[in-house]
């Protein structure tokens, strides 16, 4: 007999409550992926989990971890003549230090094009030979292989009017940095689903061994997320530090070696600045020397700048689990989806945006319905 998804979810939520009743102290698990953040809110997960189990959002929204300096540089780049900026949709509304955004730049006449894959930017460059086309390459291991494909295609085609603003980052260094910081306690991870497709479930072995934190790789269905939390809580109870892969249809132990090879052929590791985490060694990617000609920063003489985050904005603390959106003084009053200050409010994967949209910004989703 088929068991309905509803019954499966009920089963895992009950098991989570049973395990939570045996906890000797409250626990905090972190979902590292922005898609998980949104899925959790959409299925109302926060409203059905026990009070002593807290689900924190991590640095898994690519737009949210991008430093303010890079955001400002991109908005400035958009206003250059004879230049088209190709971007994934999430970046469009992120606010620059002066209150501008790519969306506002576009309404003033800048050529900003929303694309769905990196290769669209290459095609755009081919179709408009008289214009410089810059692709904003953001994202983790999920989107990096696609950027690698685009860079290699541009290289083969000998395109002179294509370049990429590389802001790719790696997930594991950020997870390790969080575990090393002493102001946020994390008892285990819901490991990112899409990233794990590339890096493989075994990639979390060091985190499990060295930091003694359980990791569960989950997909995006509500049942899987509930199951993931139940298993994490049980593992904490039993001091059993393991990797569990609940998403084997997409994630293998070793991931996708071909995609990783492609990344390795195209990029080298470099230190990079994260919102909320600062400069982390070995946490970002830069183009290898033979592809340097496609680096937008080299082509347009863009130098790394350090720009403070907007005054009062706590996005950096939100994406590292140090505070909840409701603890930010700007949240919901000065910073709203229509007048965003920080990136977490505007990205479709942003934590503040999800809190506002799905829970009307109440401190705890449970309280909304009290």
């Amino acid at each position, binding site marked *: 007999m088929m068991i309905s998804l*509803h019954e499966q979810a009920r089963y895992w939520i009950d098991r989570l409550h049973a395990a939570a009743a045996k906890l000797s102290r409250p626990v905090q698990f972190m979902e590292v992926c922005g898609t998980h953040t949104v899925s959790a809110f959409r299925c*109302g997960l926060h409203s059905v989990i026990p009070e002593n189990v807290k689900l924190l959002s991590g640095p898994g929204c*690519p737009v949210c971890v991008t430093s303010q300096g890079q955001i400002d540089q991109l908005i400035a780049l958009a206003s250059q003549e004879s230049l088209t900026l190709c971007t994934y*949709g*999430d970046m469009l509304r992120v606010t620059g230090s002066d209150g501008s955004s790519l969306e506002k730049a576009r309404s003033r006449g800048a050529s900003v094009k929303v694309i769905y894959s990196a290769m669209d930017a290459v095609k755009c460059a081919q179709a408009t030979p008289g214009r410089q086309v810059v692709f904003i390459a953001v994202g983790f291991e999920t989107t990096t292989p696609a950027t690698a494909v685009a860079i290699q295609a541009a290289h083969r085609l000998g395109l002179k009017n294509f370049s990429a603003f590389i802001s790719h980052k790696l997930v594991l260094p950020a997870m390790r940095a969080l575990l090393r910081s002493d102001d946020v306690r994390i008892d285990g991870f819901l490991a990112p689903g899409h990233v794990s497709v590339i890096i493989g479930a075994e990639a979390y072995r060091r985190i499990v061994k060295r930091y003694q934190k359980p990791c569960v790789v989950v997909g995006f269905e509500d049942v899987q997320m509930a199951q993931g939390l139940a298993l994490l809580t049980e593992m904490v109870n039993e001091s059993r530090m393991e990797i569990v892969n609940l998403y084997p249809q997409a994630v293998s132990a070793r991931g996708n070696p071909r995609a990783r090879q492609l990344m390795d052929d195209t990029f080298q590791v470099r230190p990079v600045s994260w919102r909320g985490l600062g400069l982390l060694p070995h946490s970002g990617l830069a183009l290898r020397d033979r592809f340097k000609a496609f680096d937008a920063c080299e082509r347009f003489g863009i130098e790394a700048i350090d720009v403070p985050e907007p005054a009062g904005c706590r996005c950096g603390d939100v994406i590292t689990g140090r505070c909840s959106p409701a603890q930010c003084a700007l949240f919901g009053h*000065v910073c709203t989806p*229509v007048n965003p200050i920080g990136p977490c409010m505007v990205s479709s994967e942003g934590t503040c945006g999800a809190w*506002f949209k799905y829970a009307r910004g*109440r401190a705890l989703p449970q309280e909304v319905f009290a």
Partner: protein
Amino acid sequence: MIRTLNPSAVPHKWDQITLAHGGGGLLTDSLIQQTILPRLGNSALNELLDSAQLTVGDARLAMTIDSYVVQPLFFPGGDIGRLCVSGTVNDLAVSGAKPLGIALSFILGEGLSRSTFDRVLESIQQTAREANVRIVTGDTKVIGHGTEETIFITTAGVGIVQYAQPLHPDRIEPGDVILINGYLADHGLSVMLARELPQVKSVIRSDVAPLNGLVDVILASTNDVVFMRDPTRGGVAGVVADLAQRTNLHITLQEDAIPVRSETLHAADMLGLDPLEVANEGKVIFVVRPHAAASTLEAMKSHPLGKDAAIIGVVEKKPDGLCEIRTSIGGRRILQKPYGEQLPRIC
């Protein structure tokens, strides 16, 4: 401290139009509230319903107008011609009005091919026949060369209101039941996939259709319909969140009851969109008195455009103006009016 946040409490500051102002969400609201209503507002316009109601002697007239700028002009399940007739017929139908005539105004781009224009006109002809309405007046203009084949259509319609009861959000009461006539989000996703990802093969087809036949059947079957609205831009989220806010009542929707095809759900997931926020062009939300819910559902199911109809929610007494969704896993979340332009996410 618990703070109550209202997304429209903080006015949106803007000095230039962005694409998001056209998304049918909070930004469209701010465009209308800040610039149009202060100057042009009056008792008919301020209602902001699908049609304005005008009285001539004993007759109640409904008048509506819409512009269509869809790209591509042809998409799986429909085209701009079928869209412009259906949209206007539907705005009249949900106002309880029988269409008297439709006016069409074309803005054509230089270079548009004769065959494309012929195809659009044939689709208009066919849809008008299907809806049993006449195109009674119109206009054509041509503008300079663009890069793609351009047709913009503005469609106005006048109808005569025949339903005895007024159809207005003010009549909504606790206990009223919310129904929809079938699967959601097919139109928006069909157009978005055709425009943005033409290489993706999908079975999703737009639901665009004139709904006056279905609405006639329902209105003939009961006097207990209190309000109707077609969830176009902004989707079901836009309509239901707006109703909760306007009535200051609590509306609860059951996620499991909301009809969404699995292929549509997957496409929406892939693009990071919520099917409840995606546009429909062949759907109507009915709010009916509780004792009429079952018979209305039956009447809907008897019509081809209502065979997948469902009861999706209920209006509750709590005066908080919120729409809440009970999720499949027994969780709860709030459904709000979308912000504006729907943007696909990164990964």
